[in-house]
């Protein structure tokens, strides 16, 4: 980020340079009648509160419990996901990729930050940053180990670089011991990271099979 020095003029002289710059642009565009600040609020509210990984978890739980839905997801993920009303920007062309004991899927956008917004919300900073973007296509096993995920040697890793408008949702394997669980209960085991591929779904006994180095609550990352 830029230096802390500000230029000392006007009411915004307590702001960081980037804050002043953003505020200036919003002022200009609003004065020209080109943007509606309330639209900005609505967009932010959508991605803060309405759309998030709970959507993807619902897709996964449905796939685990309904073989016809899983088949639909494999054949036409956009339509299957749309049937749950998860549609729109950065999810127009969905692909579901299914983990198996033999193959683990991981998603990245090496070129920028492409991510399936309607099912996962906005991406975390690590997903959009050079370390993950550059290293997960080279050494995913080492990167997943940083997330606390150690896969058996016999499991191969498939990395999907989202270079076009196709957006990838990883369907993690269903944990053992969940045979009679409801979809809602199953969805609670599905972390955001398990749908990117940097984690796996949690076990029913509450242990996360993969946690971030300073483990958060199951269900958040």
């Amino acid at each position: 980020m830029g230096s802390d020095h500000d230029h000392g003029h006007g009411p915004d002289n307590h702001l960081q340079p980037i804050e002043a710059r953003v505020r200036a642009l919003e002022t200009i565009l609003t004065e020209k009648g080109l943007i509606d600040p309330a639209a900005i609020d609505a967009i932010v509210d959508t991605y803060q509160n309405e759309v998030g990984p709970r959507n993807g978890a619902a897709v996964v739980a449905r796939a685990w419990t309904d073989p016809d839905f899983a088949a639909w997801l494999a054949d036409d993920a956009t339509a299957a996901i749309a049937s749950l009303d998860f549609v729109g920007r950065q999810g127009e062309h969905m692909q579901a990729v299914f983990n198996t004991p033999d193959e683990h899927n991981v998603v990245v956008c090496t070129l920028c930050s492409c991510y399936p917004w309607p099912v996962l919300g906005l991406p975390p900073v690590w997903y959009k940053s050079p370390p993950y973007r550059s290293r997960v296509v080279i050494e995913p096993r080492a990167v997943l180990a940083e997330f606390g995920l150690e896969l058996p040697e016999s499991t191969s890793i498939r990395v999907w670089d989202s270079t076009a408008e196709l957006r990838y949702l990883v369907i993690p394997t269903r944990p053992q011991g969940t045979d009679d669980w409801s979809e809602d209960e199953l969805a609670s085991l599905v972390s955001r990271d398990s749908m990117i591929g940097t984690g796996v779904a949690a076990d029913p006994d509450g242990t996360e099979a993969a946690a971030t180095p300073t483990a958060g609550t199951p269900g958040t990352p």
Partner: protein
Amino acid sequence: MGFGPVDPEPNEPYFHADWEERVLGMTLCAAALGHWSLDESRHARENRHPADYYSSSYYEIWQKGLERLLIRHDVVSNEELAAGHSLRPGPESAQVLTADRVPRTLSRGGPVDRPATTKARFETGDQVRTKVINPQTHTRLPRYARGKLGVVDKIHGCHVYPDRNAHGGGEQPQWLYTVRFDGRELWGDDAEAGLSVSIDAWEPYLEPA
């Protein structure tokens, strides 16, 4: 090695400052004016000195890209950015995204599939080699995947072609393929065992192997 540890932030918030929220919303609202495509906006963000790119936070890059697009399309002037105020009125008619239309706009999205007008050159299972290219202009063929031997995994129909669309060349839809590479093809014999990487490649990126 390289860029170092991934270092995820526990319980990370979606935004780390209010200004990041405004940049996200402003970028989407400004794009709705219809002056540029998503492809052009990506290029506007990314086409900068590496030192600038790597020293900027994610939303700083969005802000810089947005300023560049607005100047380029004569929506805003450098004088206005310096002044922090509009110095001339906006155009009489502009397609402004109002708050009430946000839900419909977000849920409609921007699909990029287009009707096919040509036959696909490749089939699933075909061996292909990605071309060696080094354009000064926008491309979605990553440098690590140029001149590499892979296999067509899936065909996705015709999609808007960013390499042309980003520069006002029109959509020029091309057949889109998922192409899969063995890790050793990309990184040599020391690649992690069992690794494969795929990209989504438009037909002009590929030649028969």
